[in-house]
């Protein structure tokens, strides 16, 4: 059947209607699950499989606070393989190249379905090529919290990688030799999974903060090393030197300035990566020049945001996970650098979630189409290479959503008549900034009016599309197989698009 953005989805799933359709729904949470007794210390990952016990067909969840430095998912996967367990469902909040060993487990039917918010590397290729028996469900960060709270994702065992814990089961991500920062994504799992297991390499008598409350924790396992702190760095931590990216970043900040949004009380979010760092850098310059003090910055936190915070350009930081060690350090020492849990961050049903208080969010894109729909999930060849994460959540919630993207890169146009995969609906997107012009969504007549005398190159998205085709000509349509291997689940639980098997050739 076709959904509200005219995409084919399999029968039996709830079709996407509109980005604000959730307002008509009643939210019903399942009961929180408290530990029945004092947390029990176990000697190994293997021991937990016997004691619970973990069996065929169970759903296990994990989190990506160590990002590409995560070691826990692979430890658990190895035990599943050793025990020959089958038909397992994995629900990690993200999957990175470090999780390559999962590919074998998928091919051999140990793992047959996955829920996640972001996927890259070998596992993404394995699923794209159709090796997983059942479907991949791609949630958003806020949507994953919703799905767990409502029981849409029914977790049997939640494994929490913590950098330190005490013997009672309290834990955090900041103490110990391998810190990773605030553990914002673990909370829905911590509250609603049937069994909760803290895995750490450091047991302390007293923690500097009890970010994880022992009353939800059933087991503690000490391993030799839980993760690599250096792996949390997301791509580069330096500002881009690419003149095109710098132009896009400067134009973005000039646009925000022309819209009169650089003012006291400003709240702001952007992602990691060198262009986002450049946007933060130029925004900082404007805020300092105009003596502006913002209210808060949020999201995954980078050192460019902690530096703005330390320069007192923001009152507070709301941090769901740290993207570098400077951000971890800032969380440890600043009381106004707050941990933000996934539901509080962006669950559509969490009243006054932090994302809804954002004035501006700056997001990236793999493709944008003439209806302003954005793809951040699949590549131009339809292969899985990312995911929404907080993209759809913040795009909907923030007062102004700006997408920054190259118009053309390596002779591939980034603005298309139709995106390969819709991750975020165009109704949530206000402006697209490219190196060859800025397109405002015609739905935002107020913005068009404000920018009518602008010296910036404001142009219809159709004209940007034509400029791209003038350079690249129209690319051949992407061919993929008919079999659906995954679904993009919008934050309200409806299906916004399908992901198809990619031909090996």
């Amino acid at each position, binding site marked *: 059947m076709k959904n509200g953005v005219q995409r084919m989805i399999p029968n039996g799933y709830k079709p996407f209607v509109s980005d604000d359709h959730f307002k008509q729904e009643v939210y019903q949470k399942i009961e929180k699950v408290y530990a029945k007794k004092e947390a029990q210390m176990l000697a190994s990952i293997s021991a937990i499989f016997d004691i619970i016990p973990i069996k065929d067909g169970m759903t296990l969840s994990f989190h990506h606070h160590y990002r590409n430095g995560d070691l826990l998912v692979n430890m658990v996967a190895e035990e599943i393989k050793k025990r020959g367990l089958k038909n397992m469902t994995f629900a990690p909040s993200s999957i990175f190249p470090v999780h390559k060993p999962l590919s074998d487990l998928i091919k051999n039917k140990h793992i047959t379905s996955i829920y996640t918010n972001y996927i890259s590397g070998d596992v993404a290729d394995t699923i794209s090529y159709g090796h997983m028996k059942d479907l991949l469900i791609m949630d958003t960060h806020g949507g994953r919290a919703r799905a767990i709270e409502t029981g849409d994702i029914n977790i049997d065992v939640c494994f929490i990688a913590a950098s330190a814990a005490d013997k009672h089961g309290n834990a955090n991500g900041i103490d110990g030799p391998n810190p990773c920062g605030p553990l914002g994504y673990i909370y829905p799992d911590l509250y609603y999974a049937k069994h909760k297991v803290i895995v750490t390499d450091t047991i302390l008598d007293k923690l500097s903060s009890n970010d994880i409350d022992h009353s939800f924790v059933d087991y503690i396992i000490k391993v030799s090393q839980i993760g690599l702190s250096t792996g949390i760095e997301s791509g580069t931590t330096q500002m881009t*030197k690419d*003149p095109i990216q710098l*132009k896009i970043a400067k134009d973005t900040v000039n646009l925000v300035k022309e819209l009169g949004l650089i003012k006291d009380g400003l709240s702001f979010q952007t992602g990691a990566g060198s262009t986002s760092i450049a946007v933060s850098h130029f925004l900082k310059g404007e805020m300092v020049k105009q003596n502006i003090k913002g209210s808060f910055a949020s999201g995954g936190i980078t050192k460019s945001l902690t530096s703005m915070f330390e320069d007192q350009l923001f009152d507070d930081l709301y941090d769901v996970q740290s993207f570098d060690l400077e951000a971890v350090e800032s969380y440890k020492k600043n009381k106004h650098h707050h941990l933000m849990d996934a539901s509080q961050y962006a669950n559509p049903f969490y009243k006054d979630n932090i994302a809804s208080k954002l004035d501006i969010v700056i997001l990236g894109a793999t493709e944008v189409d003439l209806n302003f729909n954005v793809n951040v999930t699949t590549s131009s060849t339809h292969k899985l290479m990312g995911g929404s994460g907080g993209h759809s959540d913040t795009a909907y919630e923030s007062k102004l959503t700006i997408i920054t993207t190259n118009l053309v890169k390596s002779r591939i146009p980034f603005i298309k008549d139709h995106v390969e995969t819709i991750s975020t609906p165009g109704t949530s997107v206000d402006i697209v900034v490219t*190196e*060859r012009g800025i397109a405002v969504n015609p739905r935002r007549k107020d913005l068009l009016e404000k920018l009518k005398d602008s010296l910036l190159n404001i142009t219809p998205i159709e004209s940007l599309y034509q400029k791209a085709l003038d350079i690249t000509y129209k690319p051949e349509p992407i061919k993929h197989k008919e079999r659906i291997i995954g679904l993009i689940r919008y934050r309200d639980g409806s299906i916004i698009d399908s992901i198809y098997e990619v031909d090996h050739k």
Partner: protein
Amino acid sequence: MRKSLLFIPANHPGMLQNVDIFDADGIIFDLEDGVALTEKDAAMDLLASFFKHFHLKNIEKIVRINEINDLDLIMCEQIDTVCLPKADTDVLKLLDKKLSTLEKKYRLTHKIQVIALIETPESILNALSIAKQPRVNGLLLGAEDLSTYLGVRRTLEGKEIEFARNMVIYAAKSMGIDAIDTPFTDTNDIDGLNKDIEYAKQLGMNAKACIHPNQIESVNHLFRPSQEDILFAQKILLAKEQADREGLGAFSVDGKMVDKPIIDRALQIIKASKE
């Protein structure tokens, strides 16, 4: 008047594709030092093809050639200007003849101009003769090659090229053409670039070549008249209008006498501010 001219090696498709997005007044498509010897044929081929398919508007298209015969392979309507390396009066005369022939052959609708690259001790001393050659509408100082000829090391302060800068400026300005400053080679040092531009502008340069797109904003900004200059120029011109109405030959602004050079400078500033 030009302000910013960006060098782009002509053998790099990714760079060619984006030359028109950085607000440079002109692009110098480089076939000379920016292209390895083994790549020169490919660069000419690519550039010819680029001009055929990409129609750049509102931007000066300049080609830095290796030798005059390069023009046989790349000449087309899109080229506005030829940049001649190690320019001297003899080669400029030959270039003028060659361009006249090619303009007829390709029925070009405009006359091709020339920027003379002044980068040898001899051309510094002959700068005025070079500026007087047909088609030359700008002198570009090439300080890197010049320093090699002089056997000196380039410094941030640029004392070693001060004489050369002045020769280029005096020759260019005496002929009413552009004095274009040598590029600043440290592409990561924007503070150093800004100081270099301010100094060159103070001496009399009106434009600067750039070797990285990230330098263009500084060059455009600093070579544009400042708000303070524009306000003062407007004040001078208003006072002149009033003096004309009152039939006064001489008048003063802020207690200082205003004469013709000051009025001409005010007119120049207002003109430049509108470009």
